[in-house]
């Protein structure tokens, strides 16, 4: 275990340079460059705000826009880490066939790639909140140190998901498709477009409190929007969820790492 981690660290130049390459190739051909990944969440937010402001007249779109964008970016980070995690071992097959490095490296490449997009979306979000908050323009920015530990937890959580989905896809070829369906369904069952209270009112309390995504919403979205630090028990919950996912991923690695090469 410790040996594995030190190997991952020893070969950091390898996977870090591949992350850099992924970014470079993705943005090389567009004039807007990295701006493209800004555009997606911004457009989504605008569309939803327009929709909701005409549907529900009482909705204040100035507070709704950051709310939606925050939920959407966290959701997207989790979703894209899991789904691009599906292809991670196939994409890196040539390296796996050449060098017996710890397999945990390849999901790391995937997650760090999606992390960049999440960071960009987060930047837009901070700007949006700062502009829309009338009282204290720096409130969201001041919250960065508060949400930082939660962000670290979220990254570990996404890495774990991407490990699990990666192994799953190697052994069952339809996993990616099923996961896409799963995420599609849960997009509507997760309080991204509506408030958590809605689920509780509809007797779906388990979805409102049990889902790991909601925990990360409460740990990251809430402080940014309200300016209040999350209670310690909530953070403990986040730690527990992250550790459970991480232990799951490590168990999968331990169980299947030596079998993977025969199934590629």
């Amino acid at each position, binding site marked *: 275990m410790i040996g594995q981690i030190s190997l991952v660290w*020893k*070969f950091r*130049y*390898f996977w870090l*340079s*591949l992350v850099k*390459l992924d970014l*470079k*190739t993705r943005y090389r051909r567009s004039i807007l460059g990295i701006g493209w990944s800004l555009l997606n969440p911004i457009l989504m937010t605008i569309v939803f705000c327009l929709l909701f402001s005409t549907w529900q007249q009482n909705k204040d779109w100035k507070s709704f826009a950051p709310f939606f964008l925050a939920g959407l970016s966290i959701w997207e980070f989790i979703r894209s880490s899991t789904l691009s995690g599906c292809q991670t071992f196939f994409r890196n097959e*040539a*390296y*796996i*066939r*050449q*060098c*017996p*490095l710890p397999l945990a490296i390849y999901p790391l490449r995937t997650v760090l790639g999606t992390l960049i997009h999440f960071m960009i979306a987060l930047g837009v979000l901070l700007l949006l909140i700062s502009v829309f908050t009338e009282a204290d323009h720096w409130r969201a920015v001041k919250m960065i140190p508060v949400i930082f530990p939660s962000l670290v937890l979220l990254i570990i959580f996404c890495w774990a998901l991407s490990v699990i989905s990666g192994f*799953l896809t190697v*052994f*069952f*070829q*339809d*996993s990616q498709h*099923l996961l896409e369906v799963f995420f599609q369904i849960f997009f509507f069952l997760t309080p991204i477009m509506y408030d958590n209270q809605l689920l509780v009112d509809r007797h779906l309390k388990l979805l409102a409190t049990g889902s790991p995504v909601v925990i990360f919403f409460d740990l990251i979205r809430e402080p940014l929007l309200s300016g209040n630090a999350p209670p310690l028990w909530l953070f403990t919950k986040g730690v527990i969820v992250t550790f459970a996912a991480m232990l799951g991923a490590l168990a999968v690695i331990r169980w299947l790492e*030596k079998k993977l*090469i*025969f199934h590629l």
Partner: protein
Amino acid sequence: MAKIELNNIDLTFSIRQTRKITLKEWLVQGIFWNNPAKKIHALKTMSITLQDGDRLGVIGHNGAGKSTLLKLMAGIYPPTNGSRNVEGNICSLCVISLGFEPDASGWDNIRYRAYLQGETPATLKGKIQSIAEFSELGDFLNIPVRYYSAGMLIRLAFSIASAVEPEILLIDEVLAVGDLAFQIKARKRMEQMMSKASLLVTISHDLQAICELCNRAIWIDHGAIRLEGDVRKVVEAYRQCATNSPGLHTAAA
């Protein structure tokens, strides 16, 4: 101090006759699903111990398990049974033409591959120029590897792979590297590496080359060691068998 120790190694592949099973099928059939995978016993209870100074030639028919054995030594295939114990850093020249990032330039690919071999930016700094020079690719190194010809790719791959000074060198079927001029150069480089490495394992069908390079040999037949010992003795037995009964020893299982 380099060492390779294989104790009663077994390696079994499970090959699926048809396509992969889907998660849906698996969930539905669950416990009733009996595994239709076919087992292929690629290596059968092998024990090999190699130490400093050993130069081992591996010979045998196509499909005997020579390359599989090499990959197992390199740590890519974990053994199904038995233990593998290796000391010293390994360089394996097996499938070197794989594993390029097609969208990245030749220079960048040198870096990725070198980092994969355990280099750091600091150690690579002194080497990258000589790797580039050895490949003789010049300005082509600035364009994406996607546009390289097969010969150019193998030049680049060989130049990077051979830039390390390994203690253990594993070579599969001495590669036909590029054009004639480069082949001569590559052969020279390989000879240099072989003389520096403290342990060498090589697979070849060129029995003459095996006799010149190696001091020990094993003859693998259908996944098991048929004969091992002094290189001349093993090569002679193999040659006799192959000429006396052509076809018999190649009848794959």
